[in-house]
């Protein structure tokens, strides 16, 4: 980052940020009083524009546009996303400090700004600076202003702040892209420097949310994106008029698919490593992302009894996944498996359900029948939890919601009012098309019958909610697990003595990308149902949750598995 004073204690220049936003020296852990200044990431006041050598950037093009660089576009996108997150309740620190610092660090690391020699551009005679500009000179001592921490690449140019692209590129601007460096941006040699993409903006957001330990999981974030609460699709319509998009810019900024969980997550890890970030702030048991907390939330959402929470906590404790060291992200550390908090919590619940109900398409219904009997006889006190009743209620709601979701997928609109054209030649054609589309939409919209104003549903963390005030008994939060538990040696254990493992052996992730392979037909329908429920809530494939379930089971039954593999006994189902 930009802070480059020497540490008072150890004279190193190796700074990190504490939770409180203060600088601390990584070498000697000396915390300073210096705090981050709030930086306005606004496009207009972008310092880069001001430092660009005069005369090389045209102020106005013939069509009223101006020159702009791809990363400026992304900066705008991030700003908009951060603002939206703030509206959703995320603390302002995220936008004002964390995200923009991550971003600036990224720019530095990828040599797009804040450094001596921006990447990807062959440099002609660089005017502004007074130092020598000999290309083959020894890397000089970095100046005070523009320090990229721990940089050691060769051929650092002296401090010319931001060289504009060569005339070669600027000539082709009008043909290939509205941005100055659009075509360069898409060239392949950018790969090492972690080229910025639209999905990656979400990785940035999530990374910032994680740093601040905000109560928003990645699946929540992505769901808000799809629901339109966070700018992503067609975000370019918020670009100022002067920033014209055309040609290759479309490939960069135009999104034509929903963000994929795995992709955003993996990019986030890559990004964190690339930026050389230190260990993230600890995830403790008072954090939202801690499995104990998330399990509580998901149990509520899944309309399961509160009593199950005791069990999820027990499982979490037993396999040590509640430890800060396990949960906290340490970038670049490949030995620890990185944690998907939402998937983990869901998987824990699935395991608990298997522990208590077995879920082999037989036992859970038997237990339910017993509970039903008990409930008939026992009118006082809280009702016993009946799996069958719960199944019916949830299935009904799930089917309704799934159907709604399916229709929304069919009705999803990708285009916006601001039209895009690949080149100036196509502009009139594109505009005519848009006009026709609007006309036709109006014509058939009138024939649609009741015109529903497309109201965006208010963003909510809970997709399903159940109220105990409902007299129809459709809320199971307060139900008791008594019917399925027994006391042994002072401990409450499940009556269910059996357990079946999802898989005996975990796959090697490196070989096939997964730890297990889920096929619906191979597993009991109750198990599939439960997976389907969480798959819907998290908007991810059931197989992801299944993978996580396998991992948890292997940790839980580690000893037994070792024994079993010794004696080579079969699985008991």
């Amino acid at each position, binding site marked *: 980052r930009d802070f480059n004073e020497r540490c008072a204690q150890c004279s190193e220049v190796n700074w990190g940020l504490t939770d409180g936003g203060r600088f601390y020296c990584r070498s000697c852990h000396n915390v300073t009083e210096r705090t981050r200044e709030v930086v306005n990431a606004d496009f207009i006041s972008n310092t880069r524009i001001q430092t660009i050598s005069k005369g090389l950037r045209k102020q106005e093009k013939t069509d009223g546009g101006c020159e702009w660089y791809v990363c400026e576009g992304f900066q705008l996108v991030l700003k908009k996303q951060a603002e939206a997150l703030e509206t959703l309740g995320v603390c302002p620190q995220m936008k004002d400090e964390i995200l923009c610092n991550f971003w600036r660090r990224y720019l530095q690391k990828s040599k797009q700004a804040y450094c001596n020699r921006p990447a990807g551009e062959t440099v002609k005679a660089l005017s502004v600076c007074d130092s020598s500009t000999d290309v083959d000179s020894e890397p000089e001592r970095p100046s005070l202003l523009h320090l990229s921490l721990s940089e050691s690449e060769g051929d650092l140019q002296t401090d010319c702040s931001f060289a504009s692209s060569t005339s070669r590129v600027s000539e082709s601007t009008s043909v290939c892209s509205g941005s100055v460096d659009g075509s360069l941006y898409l060239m392949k040699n950018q790969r090492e420097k972690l080229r910025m993409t639209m999905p990656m903006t979400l990785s940035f957001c999530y990374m910032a949310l994680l740093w601040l330990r905000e109560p928003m999981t990645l699946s929540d974030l992505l769901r808000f994106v799809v629901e339109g609460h966070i700018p992503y699709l067609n975000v370019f319509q918020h670009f100022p008029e002067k920033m014209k998009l055309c040609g290759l810019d479309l490939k960069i900024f135009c999104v*034509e*698919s*929903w963000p*994929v*969980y795995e992709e955003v997550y993996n990019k986030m890890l890559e990004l964190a490593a690339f930026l050389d970030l230190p260990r993230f702030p600890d995830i403790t048991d008072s954090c939202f992302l801690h499995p104990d907390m998330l399990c509580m939330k998901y149990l509520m959402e899944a309309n399961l009894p509160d009593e199950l929470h005791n069990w999820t906590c027990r499982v979490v404790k037993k396999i040590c996944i509640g430890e800060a060291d396990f949960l906290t992200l340490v970038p670049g550390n490949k030995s620890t498996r990185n944690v998907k908090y939402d998937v983990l919590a869901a998987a824990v619940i699935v395991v608990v359900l298997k522990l208590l109900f077995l879920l082999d398409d037989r036992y859970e219904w038997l237990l339910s029948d017993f509970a039903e009997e008990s409930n008939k006889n026992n009118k006082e006190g809280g009702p016993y939890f009946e799996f069958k009743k719960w199944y019916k209620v949830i299935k009904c709601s799930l*089917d309704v919601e*799934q*159907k709604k979701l*399916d*229709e929304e*997928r*069919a*009705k*999803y*609109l*990708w*285009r916006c009012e601001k*039209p895009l054209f690949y080149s100036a030649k196509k502009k009139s054609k*594109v505009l005519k*098309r*848009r006009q*026709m*589309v609007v*006309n*036709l*939409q109006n*014509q*058939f*919209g*009138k*024939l*649609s*019958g009741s015109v529903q104003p497309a109201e965006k549903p208010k963003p909510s963390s809970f997709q399903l909610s159940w109220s105990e005030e409902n007299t129809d008994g459709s809320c199971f939060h307060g139900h008791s697990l008594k019917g399925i538990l027994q006391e042994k040696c002072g401990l409450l254990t499940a009556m269910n003595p059996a357990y079946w493992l999802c898989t005996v052996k975990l796959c090697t992730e490196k070989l096939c990308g997964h730890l297990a392979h889920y096929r619906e037909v191979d597993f009991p329908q109750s198990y599939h149902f439960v997976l*389907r429920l969480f*798959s819907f809530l998290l*908007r*991810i*494939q*059931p197989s992801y949750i299944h993978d996580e379930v396998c991992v948890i089971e292997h940790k839980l039954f580690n000893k037994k598995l070792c024994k079993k593999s010794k004696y080579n006994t079969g699985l008991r189902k």
Partner: protein
Amino acid sequence: SSHEHKLNFKKSKEVCLSYIQDAMLQKQWKRAAEFLTFYIESLEKDFSTQYVGPSEMIWRIGTEILCHHSHSSVKEFNSFTEQMKTLGVKRYLKVCLEHAFHLLCNGLIDEAYQNLSLAESWRFGEQTAIQDKEMKLIQAYRGLLDYYSWSKQKAILLEHGQDGFEDLSVEQEMHSCFRKAAVNLKEIIKIPGVWDLFVKCYVDLLEFYGDHNEACQVLNEYAYNSKFPANPNAHVYLYQFLKRHGESKKSLISALKILHDIVPSHELMIDFNTMLQKSKKRKKRRLGLEVIFAALDYAGWKENVKAWSCLARQVKQIVISEKHLDWIKQEWNSRKDWWPAFHFSRYLAKRNWQENESLSYEKAVVAGILLGKDCKYFKYVSHQGCKAQVKRFRTLKKFVNKHNPVYLRISG
């Protein structure tokens, strides 16, 4: 339900399309229209790799919805179709043509005519040549509408003529319509195809103006040119024309010959048989027998008195002359296994007698000769007939009894 939580543009439009199709199949037009509004933006990204692109999809679906939706009007349809015309130049003439059809179906003949005329004047570089077929069709249909105007004028003229009025302007109008119509109709029927309506109209025009040669030639071409698909109607039109103009029996017979080959059950087979029976040539009479037997193979003729009377007459005549019994034998050979159950069951005997005495009489003649006096049908009908004291049945009974040995020779 889909477990997919991924989605991209292409997939979401595919899914949208399936919702539209479901709605249309269930005739839920409002719902179809609703989902169509979400599909429409795929025009902004035309996948030219697909067999049927979005623009054609929208044209066809939109048309279907507008045709069936209760709130839709012709005006809406017109405005929609106009937009579709601008969408794809490769499809321009096709859309024009279908637009015209729709207007015609709704009785808006003048609008249809205007549309077709407009389309006729369309030129678009090499597309004009590529869409040549559609252009010819457009011209042909315009020609047809010209014919329609012509016949209206003709009717007016005739009316006025009866009243003693002379109307020069109408007459001129009529002739000009004729010219326009003739040119286009002539063109289209040159192309191998099925042009029944066009041919009829064209011939009508030619006949009115006295150009019988041309008319005859046109009809012959239409019927006999091997490049044209086999079309029974072509032969019917030719036959009717020849008959109208008092042509010889020989030419009439030759006109119906191929019709018999293509459609043995055609209603003109009676005329055909009648002509053939009376012929002096043996071959023709032989053919006549074949024709009438073949016609009666079809269920639609089971109760046709005329047909049965033709067969009865011819068979009777052969039996009396005692010549060419082998003809009957040949025809009966392939039918003796199934005609008895098909035509001459006891149930049919009862029913025919109750419902139609003449039918039962004619059939009884045939049954008696082919199956002998002891067959169920003959026995029942003749008995009933004699009981009712209908003279011809008594005569028939005597006749069959007299010629019973013949039956033995036929059936052997």
